[in-house]
């Protein structure tokens, strides 16, 4: 075979990643994503005449822990039947032994890109609330995502929100699931610098993403619970509204409480966080912030602007009448 030029290396690497789907009912179309421990490919399901996404393990797996994690991810997804979570269609092994699962092909754009097109703060807050829904649902089923960030949330063409990449999810109550996703930090070393920043499936790194990862998760503590996702949602909220001005004290207080360093100082769960954001949207007091009298007056004025304007107009009219006819 001929000597390889530099550009051949990438093509060969791709050929080595490409899953052999000949033993499955799917036909390979193209690679659509990479990261963590494997790659994601668009494939066709001729039986149902639809496209699917196939996630396949790429890395060596002598100990079998990566394959177990991929299967766990598929089972977690299968357990979480929610419009905001991608459904799994199939799971199996390729002829070369690599495990894969097929899921709904998500079309749309990343959360941050979708948010950037929303001009107002209320629109962005409403989008954020839609992200909270599947996460709260998963928590109710005993599953913590642990890697919420803008690239793991897609917004579809009809505004539907889908939370992706449950590869490092932690199962708190494991009815029907064999084992937890891995937790904790691996020994630091060279790996820590070479592992990708995305969903750290590389051994030798803390699992999660800096900036969105709760401190207790970054420290690799056992017992990380739903409040780690509350932290990530707080960071996500800050990222979503970051470009709108001005966010205001009450929103800042919500973000601060959600991203408090100590889990016990955060919102206890996602519904509590979402409720505070809803209050903010409705112009009601939020639990994260104790208002001063002038803030309460300003919020009242903002919430009842039309009524106040009518009253002011009425009073001005009365004053004008008194002025004209009272003389």
């Amino acid at each position, binding site marked *: 075979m001929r000597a390889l030029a*530099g550009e051949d290396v990438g093509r060969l690497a791709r050929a080595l990643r490409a899953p052999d789907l000949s033993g499955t009912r799917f036909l390979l179309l193209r690679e659509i994503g990479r990261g963590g421990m494997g790659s994601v490919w668009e494939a066709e399901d001729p039986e149902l005449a639809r496209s699917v996404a196939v996630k396949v393990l790429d*890395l060596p797996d002598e100990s079998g822990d990566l394959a177990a994690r991929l299967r766990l991810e598929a089972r977690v997804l299968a357990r979480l039947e929610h419009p905001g979570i991608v459904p799994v269609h199939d799971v199996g092994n390729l002829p070369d032994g690599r495990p894969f699962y097929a899921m709904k092909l998500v079309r749309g754009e990343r959360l941050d890109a979708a948010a950037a097109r929303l001009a107002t703060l209320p629109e962005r807050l409403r989008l954020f609330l839609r992200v909270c829904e599947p996460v709260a649902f998963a928590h109710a089923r005993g599953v913590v995502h642990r890697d919420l960030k803008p690239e793991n949330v897609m917004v579809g063409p009809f505004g539907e929100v889908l939370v992706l990449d449950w590869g490092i999810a932690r199962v708190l109550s494991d009815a029907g699931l064999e084992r937890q996703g891995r937790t904790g930090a691996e020994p630091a070393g060279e790996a820590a610098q070479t592992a990708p920043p995305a969903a750290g499936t590389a051994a030798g790194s803390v699992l999660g993403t800096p900036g969105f990862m709760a401190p207790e998760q970054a420290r690799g503590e056992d017992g990380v619970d739903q409040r780690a996702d509350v932290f990530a949602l707080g960071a996500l909220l800050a990222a979503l509204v970051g470009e709108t001005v001005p966010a205001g004290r009450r929103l800042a207080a919500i973000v601060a409480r959600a991203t408090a360093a100590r889990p016990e100082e955060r919102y206890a769960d996602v519904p509590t966080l979402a409720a505070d954001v809803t209050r903010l949207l409705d112009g009601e007091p939020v639990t994260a912030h104790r208002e001063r009298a002038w803030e309460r007056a300003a919020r009242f004025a903002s919430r009842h602007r039309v009524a106040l304007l009518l009253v002011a107009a009425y009073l001005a009219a009365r004053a004008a009448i008194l002025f004209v006819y009272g003389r």
Partner: protein
Amino acid sequence: MSGGFFPPTRASVVEAARSADAGERRRALETLVAAYWRPVYRHVRRKWGKGHEEAADLTQEFFAELLERDLLTRFDPSKARLRTYLRVCVDGLVANAEKAAARQKRGGGVSPLSLDFEGAREELERALASPGESPEREFEKEWARSVLELGLARLELALAGRGKGIAARLFEIYDLGAEGEPPPPYAALAERFGVSVSDVTNGLSLARRELRRIVLGLLGEMTGSEEEFRLEARTLLGVDGS
């Protein structure tokens, strides 16, 4: 689950280099030389600014030292990747050579290896026209290229040995055809080789599967732990988008 995915046990070159069996030690060195001589040569030229002759000498000397001074037995997989360790060893060798006022050619009884330095020189001098990457990154890229070339050579042998040489040819045309051009349709390949379309797709699947097995086998040989194995595979397969 790992059956079929990988050989269940890895014959690490690091372990083999420590073996009491001289034949095993030699085979280990051969694998290392095949994967690393070109990265070492280019590294010496790019990082240390050595000319062709001197870089070729230093490359030979490096592999001689690897054996003589038992450098592999000092490698600790918990501290670094083998690839990083070897690069650091090369740097140490060149630094020492620079310190010596008059470096003497050594061989330590080891015959010079038959390596195509002229070919490597031409490639390097072509690449010098577009510099810009760090020596470490270049070492990594050159290593990836060497491992894949070694894998392709073994693939060709393995498939020919099983009477499946056509699969290797199909792979070369379809997956390694001209850059930027779409691969020929399966039907065109089928006609060209006088086989059915399913023979073409099966042949391609077989070649990719075999190449993956061979390349990962090579990586397994050249790594000291599963962690390192995964990290090197991540780099070579571009799993993290590199």
